């Protein structure tokens, strides 16, 4: 699975088609595709250095790819939260939002009420007059997402909105993300956590700039070849040990098609992504 099939594209307004990016001699992205559908959340998941930021910058228009094509609306219709900043530290919460509104030419009572509701609901209302630079990490991210949502963008690109954020702020951020998608925005967000990616309608798993898996969570799970078994401890067999990983106090072993397994479990997204990473690792080791 490498991304949307050519026949799917007419129904997908935004995204990247076979995008590659090279920095000097380093290939940061290698023929990666992702479709971003309106009214849905699409998640890009991977570790540090997987290429998530590079891909999101391409889709948001902050970086021109070396190869491939990007579909995006005009800049005014894109909301983009970069990985670290996204807010002005020396402006207050209210000033950040006023400035952003002025830039996008947003006026009117309805927009003001909307922002007021977002601030109230995410616990930022009491911090209106505090400088953004003095907020906790979670509050800064919430402010950044609200600012990116201000122009009611058609495409909302959020680079790791929840990384390093505590669970309470993370829940507020997910409320904002769901609100944006429910309002019709096409949301593309990145995360290092699969339990967050599992909330999305479509998931792209990146590893070292390449697509490891892509599709709906159900498609990614269904694409796992063979079976997965749960065993209480690390397998003694050295061959099995190469296909095993630890999860929640027990071990999972992946058995390729044709290898019999006792007590197979129904895999979830986390199992499927671990198998995809293992297969890539085993293929690399055997090559």
């Amino acid at each position, binding site marked *: 699975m490498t991304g949307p099939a050519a026949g799917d594209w007419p129904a997908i307004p935004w995204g990247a088609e076979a995008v590659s990016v090279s920095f000097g001699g380093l290939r940061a992205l290698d023929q990666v595709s992702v479709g971003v559908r309106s*009214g849905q*959340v699409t998640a890009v998941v*991977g*570790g*540090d*250095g*997987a290429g998530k930021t590079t891909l999101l910058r391409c889709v948001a228009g902050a970086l021109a790819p070396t190869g491939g094509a990007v579909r995006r609306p005009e800049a005014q219709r894109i909301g983009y939260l970069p990985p670290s900043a996204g807010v002005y530290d020396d402006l207050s919460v209210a000033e950040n939002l006023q400035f952003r509104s002025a830039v996008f030419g947003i006026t009117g009572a309805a927009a003001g009420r909307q922002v007021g509701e977002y601030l109230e609901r995410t616990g930022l209302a009491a911090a209106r007059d505090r400088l953004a630079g003095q907020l*906790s*990490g*979670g509050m800064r991210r919430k402010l950044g997402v609200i600012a990116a949502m201000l122009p009611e963008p058609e495409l909302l690109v959020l680079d790791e909105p929840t*990384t*390093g*954020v*505590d*669970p*309470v*702020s*993370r*829940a507020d951020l*997910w*409320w904002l*993300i*769901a*609100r944006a*998608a*429910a*309002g*019709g925005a096409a949301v593309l967000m990145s995360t*290092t*956590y*699969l*339990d967050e990616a*599992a*909330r*999305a*309608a479509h998931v792209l798993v990146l*590893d070292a700039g390449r697509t490891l898996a892509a599709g709906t*969570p*159900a498609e990614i*799970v269904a694409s796992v070849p063979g*079976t997965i078994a*749960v065993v209480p401890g*690390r397998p003694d067999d050295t061959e099995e040990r190469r296909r095993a*990983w*630890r*999860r*929640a*106090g027990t071990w999972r072993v992946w058995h390729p098609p044709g290898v019999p397994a006792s*007590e*197979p*479990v*129904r895999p*979830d*997204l*986390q199992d499927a*992504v*671990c198998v995809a*990473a*293992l297969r890539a*690792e085993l293929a690399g080791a055997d090559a």
Partner: protein
Amino acid sequence: MPEIVDPEIADAEIAGPEIADAEILAECASVSRVFGRFTAVDGVDLAVGPGEVVGLLGANGAGKTTLIRMLLGLLPVSGGSVRLFGQLPSRASRRRVGYLPQGLGLYDDLTIAENLAFSRAVFTGTASASTDVPDSLRRYAAIAVRDLPLGVARRAAFAQVLAHAPELLLLDEPTSGVDPLARARLWETISQTAADGAGVIVTTHSMEEAEECTRLVVLAGGRVVAAGTAAQIVGPARTTVVRAANWAAALRRLEAAGLRAVLAGTELAGTEPAGAEPAGTPLAGTEPAGTALRVPGRPAAEVAAALGDLPASVTTEPATLEECFFKLVAGG
């Protein structure tokens, strides 16, 4: 908003397991810490024995970092007492501890080999030019840490923390920014270290990671609000789940009725054997299908009423650790 009270969670065990006194590696007894008029830690009891992996969960400001700094003797207590290996924390007892801070604690301008050699010299008092670099890191051994991918730097930091065979590991969000398979591998290392007899205290914001711990301690407002295994903390609690093809319309109806719904996607994590029936049995509406919204703390009947004639299924399913965490933190 009405207060959500769940008696099952309110009764979650507060006491930890019995650990023989001689075996306790680290202990906090009624420990408090006050900064000016702010109480950061308020009467916390915590004990870690050999072989245990204790997860510290809490929102920002819950007191996790303050507690760890007191355990290390880097911050004096305002009340209660702290013991490391049965003694007051000291330079000698800290030598038996492996501490992995969020910032990894490596010197950016030294290579992995130099970092490991320096750390060994500090801990053993013997300088030596050659240091054993683990096989998996050997190809990176001569590269300055600032030029390494974060995942590699994180493995190097683990190697450094484990190099002096610590009896107690203190890990502050040890796997953030790591891909799922690499995270599973780091947890293999952590659990193997515990199986070899060390005690481990881990702070984390990740519920996936919390489920790797043998025991959890949930902090809110500086107090312990729950302790036990993840399964004990979740207990029999259940959550109302809505599945609807038009999830956005369902979300709008729930919000209009003042119900807080959380987007949960189309797949629910599960470990049932292949072929088992899904956990949810519809209480109202159609067969479970579509995108799930979880509505914690609200009965299915109220949720079904809020949805009205919208095509959707309403079920109850086992609560998640995250949902229980929120109830505990909100009530704390």
